[in-house]
C-alpha cells in the first residue's frame, strides 16, 4: 500500500440499462418514473450555476413546472464563464455529408479521451447532440450561415469531419444568451427564482440525501440556508487551482469540493487540459491567460525558427529557416492534432531552446498563408474578434505579424463522479457540465464542452432527475431548523470567522500564485513520480502556512472580495493535493496526463490499459486522512482500444 491513499471497493454505474448501446438512452427514459405535472409545482430543485449546463437545466425544469432556485456568484446569470467560449459546438448533424454520424462522434470522443471515459454516456452525448443545434436555432442563436441560408460548419482539432457549429468567435456567448433568455422567461413565469451574487459554501446532507445548500449573500454577508428536494451542481471546472488559466477570475471548486467532503466521489482529478494556443504570460502581475481559439489552427500554421535563438523579425525568416513542427511530426493531422499532443509539442520545442518572445516561451501561429490565399476580409470575417483581442492585449497587429502563443490551463476533465443518470454518490445530488467527470476521459476534444453542457442541461438531467424526485420528495418535517442544516450553517460561519481572524502577513493572491506555480511545474504538462511527491509535500506545507498566515481584511457583513477569494483558495489547496495524488497513482500516460516514465520511443503518451483502464474515483475520509481510491473499470464493447495515433 502506498503512503498516499488506500484502496476501497470497486465502483459500478448501476443505472445504464443492459441493452445495445443505441437503445440505452431510450430504455433508461422508459424505465424512468414520471412526475405528474400537478405535483411538479411542489417539487423544488436547487441549481448552483447559470452557465450552459445550469441555465439550460433551470429553463427546462422550469418549463416542466418544477420550482427551481438558481444560484450564481456573478451579478447576472448571463455572465457565467460559458460566455467566454469562442470556437464552437459539435453536433453529429452530418450537414456536410462528409461521413459524420452519431457513431463517428461517439468514436472520436472516446478516442480523443484516450479510452478513459464511459461508453454509454459518450454515446448518449453524441445522440442528443443534434437536438441541441435545433433547440438553439429555435431560440434565436445566430449561428454562422452561408449565403444560401444554411448553417455553416468548420472542423476542429483532433477530427477529420466538419461538425462544428459556430457564431463567429463568440459561440459560448450566443449559446449562453439563448439559455439565459430561456431561463429568464421562466423567471417571469414564476417557476425559476434567481439568486445572483450568492456563493454556495456548503452542501446539506440529511439522512444520506442532498437536501439543500448553505450560501453567502455576497453583498450583505448573510449566511443563508436553502432547502430543496434535490440539488444540482453546475458550477463549472476547477482550472483556477493553477491560478493562471483561461478561466474567469471567479471560477472555483468550492461547490464540488464541499460536496466531495460530504461523500460525493471525485473522479480523475488529475485529468486537466492544457490548451496549446493561448497568449503567453507577460509578467508576474498577470491575472489570467487569454485563449486564442483553436479554430485558428484550421487556417494557421505553427512554427519556430529552425535555429534556436534566431531573433529576426518573423516575417524575414524564410520558409527554409522555419520548422513547422506539428506538420513535421504529425503529417496526417498536422496543425489539427488534439490539444494534449499539440501542447506538449510546443512545450518540447521551447524546452529545446527554439521558443520565441519573452523568456522564449512561445511559438508562432501564423495566418499569413491563409491571408494571402483567402484575403484579409475573409480572415476578418472568421476571426476578426480574436485578432482584435490579440492586438488589444499584446499591442501587435496579427494581420501583419504572426501571433505568439503558448499553452495554458484551460479545462478540467475530472470532476464529481456521476452515474448514467448524472447523479453523484450522494443521492439527490446531480452534477452537470464541466463540474462532472463524465464524457471526456483524459482529454476533451475542441467544441465538445459546450455540447456536453447543453446536452446535460436541456436533455439528460431533466429526464433523469424526475426519476429521483418521483420517489424521494423531501420529508415534510425538514426545514431550516433541522439540526443538520443548523450545524452546516454554523460550520460555514465558523470557517468565515477563522479566515477573518488569522490576520497574518501574506495576501490570499500570493498563496494562490504559489500554489498555482507548484501545480503548473509538477502537475502540468509533464508529470513525474518524483515531482508529484515533492508537490504533495509543498502543497501541504503551503496550506498550513495559509491557515496561519493569510491576511483577510474587512468583515463578513459587507461585500468582501478578499474573503470570497480566501474561501476559494482554501478549497483549492485540498483539491490540489488530491490532483497530485491522483496523478502520482496513475503511472501511465493518457490524454492530458503525461507521465515521463510512460512514453513510447518517439515520446508519445503510452497508455497502460491492463492496469489503468478505470476511472479513479476518490472518497474523502476527513481532513488529514488518506483518501480512498475506488475504481470504476471501463469496458469497451463498441470501440476497440487502440493506441492513439495522429501521425
Amino acid at each position, binding site marked *: 500500500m502506498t503512503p498516499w491513499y488506500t484502496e476501497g471497493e470497486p465502483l459500478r454505474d448501476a443505472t445504464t440499462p443492459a441493452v445495445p448501446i443505441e437503445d440505452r438512452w431510450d430504455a433508461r427514459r422508459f424505465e424512468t418514473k414520471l412526475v405528474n405535472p400537478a405535483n411538479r409545482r411542489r417539487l423544488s430543485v436547487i441549481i448552483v450555476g447559470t452557465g450552459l449546463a445550469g441555465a439550460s437545466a433551470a*429553463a*427546462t425544469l422550469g*418549463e416542466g413546472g418544477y420550482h427551481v432556485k438558481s444560484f450564481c456568484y*456573478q*451579478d*447576472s446569470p*448571463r*455572465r457565467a*464563464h460559458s*460566455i*467566454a467560449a469562442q470556437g464552437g459546438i459539435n453536433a453529429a*448533424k452530418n*450537414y456536410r455529408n462528409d461521413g459524420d454520424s452519431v457513431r463517428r462522434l461517439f468514436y472520436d470522443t472516446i478516442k480523443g479521451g484516450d479510452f478513459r471515459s464511459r461508453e454509454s454516456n459518450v454515446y448518449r452525448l453524441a445522440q442528443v447532440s443534434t*437536438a441541441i*443545434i*435545433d*433547440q438553439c*436555432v*429555435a*431560440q*434565436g442563436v*445566430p449561428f*454562422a*450561415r*452561408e449565403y*444560401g*441560408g444554411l*448553417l455553416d460548419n468548420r472542423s476542429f482539432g483532433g477530427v477529420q469531419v466538419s461538425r462544428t457549429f459556430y*457564431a463567429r468567435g*463568440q459561440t*459560448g*456567448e*450566443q449559446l449562453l*444568451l439563448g439559455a439565459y*433568455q*430561456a431561463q*429568464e*422567461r421562466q*423567471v417571469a413565469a414564476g417557476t425559476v427564482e*434567481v439568486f*445572483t451574487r450568492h456563493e454556495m459554501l456548503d452542501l446539506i446532507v440529511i439522512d444520506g440525501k442532498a437536501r439543500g445548500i448553505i450560501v453567502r449573500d455576497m*453583498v450583505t454577508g448573510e449566511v443563508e440556508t436553502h432547502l430543496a428536494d434535490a440539488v444540482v451542481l453546475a458550477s463549472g471546472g476547477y482550472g483556477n487551482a493553477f491560478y493562471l488559466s483561461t478561466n*474567469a*477570475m471567479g471560477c472555483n471548486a468550492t461547490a464540488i469540493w464541499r460536496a466531495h467532503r460530504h461523500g460525493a466521489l471525485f473522479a480523475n482529478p488529475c485529468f486537466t487540459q492544457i490548451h496549446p494556443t493561448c497568449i503567453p504570460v*507577460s*509578467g508576474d*502581475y498577470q*491575472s489570467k491567460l*487569454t485563449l486564442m481559439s483553436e479554430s485558428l489552427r484550421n487556417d494557421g500554421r505553427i512554427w519556430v525558427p529552425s535555429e534556436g535563438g534566431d531573433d529576426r523579425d518573423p516575417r524575414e525568416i524564410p520558409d527554409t529557416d522555419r520548422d513547422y513542427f506539428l506538420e513535421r511530426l504529425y503529417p496526417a493531422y498536422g496543425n489539427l492534432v488534439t490539444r494534449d499532443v499539440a501542447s506538449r509539442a510546443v512545450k518540447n520545442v521551447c524546452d529545446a531552446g527554439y521558443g520565441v518572445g519573452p523568456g522564449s516561451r512561445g511559438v508562432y501561429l501564423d495566418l499569413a498563408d491563409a491571408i494571402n490565399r483567402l484575403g484579409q476580409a475573409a480572415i476578418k470575417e472568421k476571426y476578426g474578434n480574436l485578432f*482584435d483581442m490579440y492586438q*488589444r*492585449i499584446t*499591442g501587435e497587429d496579427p494581420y501583419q505579424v504572426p501571433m505568439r502563443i503558448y499553452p495554458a490551463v484551460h479545462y478540467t476533465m475530472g470532476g464529481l463522479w456521476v452515474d448514467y443518470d448524472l447523479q453523484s454518490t450522494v443521492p439527490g445530488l446531480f452534477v452537470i457540465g464541466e463540474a462532472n467527470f463524465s464524457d471526456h476521459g483524459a482529454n476533451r476534444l475542441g467544441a465538445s464542452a459546450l455540447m456536453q453542457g447543453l446536452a446535460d442541461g*436541456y436533455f439528460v438531467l431533466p429526464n433523469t432527475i424526475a426519476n429521483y424526485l418521483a420517489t424521494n420528495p423531501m420529508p415534510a418535517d425538514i426545514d431550516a431548523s433541522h439540526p443538520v442544516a443548523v450545524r452546516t450553517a454554523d460550520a460555514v460561519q465558523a470557517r468565515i470567522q477563522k479566515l477573518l481572524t488569522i490576520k497574518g502577513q501574506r*495576501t490570499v493572491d500570493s498563496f494562490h500564485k504559489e500554489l498555482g506555480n507548484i501545480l503548473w511545474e509538477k502537475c502540468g504538462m509533464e508529470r513525474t513520480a518524483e515531482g508529484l511527491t515533492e508537490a504533495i509535500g509543498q502543497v501541504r506545507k503551503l496550506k498550513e502556512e495559509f491557515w496561519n498566515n493569510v491576511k483577510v*481584511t*474587512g468583515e463578513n457583513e*459587507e*461585500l468582501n472580495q*478578499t474573503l470570497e477569494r480566501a474561501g476559494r483558495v482554501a478549497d483549492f489547496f485540498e483539491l490540489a493535493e488530491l490532483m497530485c495524488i491522483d496523478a502520482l497513482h496513475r503511472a501511465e500516460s493518457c490524454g492530458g496526463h503525461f507521465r515521463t516514465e510512460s512514453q513510447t520511443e518517439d515520446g508519445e503518451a503510452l497508455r497502460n490499459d491492463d492496469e489503468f483502464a478505470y476511472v479513479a474515483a476518490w472518497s474523502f475520509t476527513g481532513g488529514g486522512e488518506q483518501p480512498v481510491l475506488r475504481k470504476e473499470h471501463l469496458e469497451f464493447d463498441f470501440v476497440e482500444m487502440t493506441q492513439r495515433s495522429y501521425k
Partner: protein
Amino acid sequence: MNITLRIWRQQNGSDAGAMVTYRIEDVAPEMSFLEMLDVLNEQLTLSGDDPVAFDSDCREGICGTCSLVIDGIAHGPEALTAVCQLHMRHFDDGAVIDVEPWRADPFPIVKDLIVDRSALDRIIQAGGYITAPTGTAPDAHATLVPKDAADRAFDAAVCIGCGACIAACPNGSAMLFTGAKATHLGSLPQGQPERNSRALAMINQHDAEGFGGCTEIGECTAVCPVGIPLNMISQLNSDVLSALAPGRTRRPQTG
C-alpha cells in the same frame, strides 16, 4: 510608469462616498488596467487598508462584468474596448486617472466601483426571448435564414450587457441595450411571431425601471465595447410603434 489614481470609495449603498487618491509605482505598460488595480489592492491589503471593490470576471471583454468610468468615459479612452482589455500602454507616465462607477439611478452603488445592474435582467425577463420550450424545435435546417438577416442578428446579439451605454447617456437611457435585443431576435425568422409584443414589453419594463428616453445623442454607441450601432434603437422604436398601431390582429402582450 508611476500613476496617480483618484478612485471613488463608498462603503455601501447608504454611505456618501468620496474620491480618494492613491499613488502606484512601477506600473508595467503591458499590464491591463485591472491588473494595475490588483497590484494596488495587494498593497492596500498588506498595509491593512480595505482594498478597492470592483467587478470583473472573464477579463477577456466578453462577460460584461467590468464596469469602470475612467476619466469620465465608460470603459476608458480606447474605442471598442471593455476596461478589462484596456492596457496601461495607453497612459502616460505620471498620469492622474479618475476611476468611478457606472452612474445611473437604476444602477444603485453596492460598494466602491460596484453597481447593481439587475434592472437589465428584468428587461430581458419582460420579453427578451423567443418562446421555444426545450424539445419543441424543428430541424435546424427547416427554416433558411438569409445570411444578411443572420449577420444583422449577430451584430446585435454581441451586446455584452455591461451597461456602459447607460452610464454614458445623459438621460440614463437603456435604449441601446434594449434595441440590441429587439434587433437580435427581431431579425430572425424564429423571432417574428413575438417581435412587436417583445419590443413593447421590454420598453415598458425599461421605463418602469427608471431608465430615461433616447434623444439620439449617440454617447451610448461611442462607448459600447462591442460597437452596437445607434440604428438598433430605430428598429426598437419601429417595432414598438407597430405593436401600438390600432387594428393589429396580433394583440401585444405586456406584463
